[in-house]
């Protein structure tokens, strides 16, 4: 990064969400309103398998899928859970509140 201006992903994206994808995985969707913003974030390289693994403090092997999906202007990745949804010790049966750290990811906008 050049030390230039940045904006948090939470301001740039229309939707940032997480949800179960079956009982063993949680999937994350980051969806943009305008193609320009979507392309900007894609190009910035702040969201990759490696950066997401670092953000969530997990090994990269726990990321089963990482794709960009042009028709929906979306970046999407999926994690393996360490225990199936709803097992004792799982605090998020729907996987619905795991996206919050993504909101603070700073995206260079210069």
């Amino acid at each position, binding site marked *: 990064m050049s030390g230039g201006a940045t904006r948090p992903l939470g301001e740039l994206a229309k939707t940032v969400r997480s949800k179960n994808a079956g009982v063993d995985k949680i999937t994350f969707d980051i969806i943009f309103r305008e193609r320009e913003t979507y392309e900007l974030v894609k190009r910035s390289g702040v969201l990759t398998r490696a950066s997401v693994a670092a953000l969530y403090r997990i090994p990269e092997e726990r990321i*089963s*899928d990482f794709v960009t999906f042009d028709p929906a202007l979306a970046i999407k990745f999926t994690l393996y859970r360490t225990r199936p949804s709803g097992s004792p010790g799982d605090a998020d049966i729907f996987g619905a509140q795991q996206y919050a750290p993504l909101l603070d990811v700073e995206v260079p906008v210069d």
Partner: protein
Amino acid sequence: MPAHTLRFLCPNGHLGFAPLKTESFRLGVDTGPDFILADSGSDDIGPGPLGSDTSTSPREWQRHDLEHMLLAARELGVPMIIGSAGDTGTNSRVDLYVEMIRDIARRHALAPFRIGWFYSEVAPSVLREKLAAGEAIRGLDGRPDLTPEELAATDRIVAVAGIHPYKALLDEGADVIIGGRSSDSVIFAAPAIRAGFPEALSYYLGKVLECASFNAEPYGGKETVIGEISMEDVRVTAVHPAQRCTVASVAGHAMYERSSPFYEHVAGGRLDMTHCVYEQVAEKTTRITGPTFMPSEGIHVKLEGAGKIGERYVGFVGIRDPYTVAHVDEVIAWARQQVCERFGDDGYELHFQVYGRNGVMGEMEPLKDRPAHEVGVLVFGIAPTREMAEEVAITGTRQMFYARLPDVKGTAGGVAFPLDEVVPASAAYRWTLNHTMQVGDPLELFPLHLDEVRP
């Protein structure tokens, strides 16, 4: 050649979890759809309902939606199809819905109609025999293949149906179908394929309609949407006056709650949405072309299974002393040690979730070193009997009060109790099966039934 187009009305996804909205449903019914359909199941709700053979949805809400749908379907004289009855699609849930349909028909003195239903439960003995015969039951999503031990820990299993039982019941002339566990999309795909439309568009139709207005914007669930299939395309339209199906909302839905936005697996093949083209063709309507469908070699049926771990009690404490907040892991370790001294190292489970620090995200929480000024600790005790679960939970909860932190100022009690006791919760289960099994006949796991409903 099939009819020029067919129109499918879906008022709700996961029917029963929250009631359908009647205003947009009525508007949709007034347009005269050819089918009225809703999926009623989800594995999002955790393993408890399947394991204990219960619904998480209140009966009144299930009945509310079935009543609206049945009355509309009989008024229009079109088929009504429900998949994955009662959250889990177990046999008891199918029977529950069939009985509700009969009762609603009686109360409204509806003219006679034919009801079809099928079951999805698989007896553990069936899988035991398959394993004994050397057949593999393949794990999904990184799970190992099924072992006899894991099967023995399983209380209840459902197989996830494809289009086959729905198609067969429609062939038999069913006016109303109550399905056991099924892939969400197949309740829509079955009648479309049966009418002669291409498989790819038919499965896509199901994929885009299965959660009703989740494919529309602005966000708002439980509103009616209508999908229309032709030989060339699928068109999906929001019915609620304030909602639209846009390219963004429809494409966005393709990736909802699945690991890949490109593929959808069903018994019998795989829908590929990689080359879908989305076009806004009217204010509230988006047109989709370009999905493909790849039939599989053999029929692979997904299996879901849940097994009981034990009875469960929960307790809760709050902590305000900043020193104790900073050392909450030591407080927990103390309480855990007291439980170990009483019950030993195993034969029970004890879990602590620290809200205000990392209660929601656990080890994935990036801010777990920055707890709030106060935290709450939720304690779960799980054991073979209710008595033991209660004692595990109360020991784990109350002993936090007595934790021995070296420099704590408050020596009259280390935590705050909003309740003096621990409270019983639902029994603890876990998902034991997320597997697939090959079958020779796509109907072999799904026995069909048909009956006439008369006043």
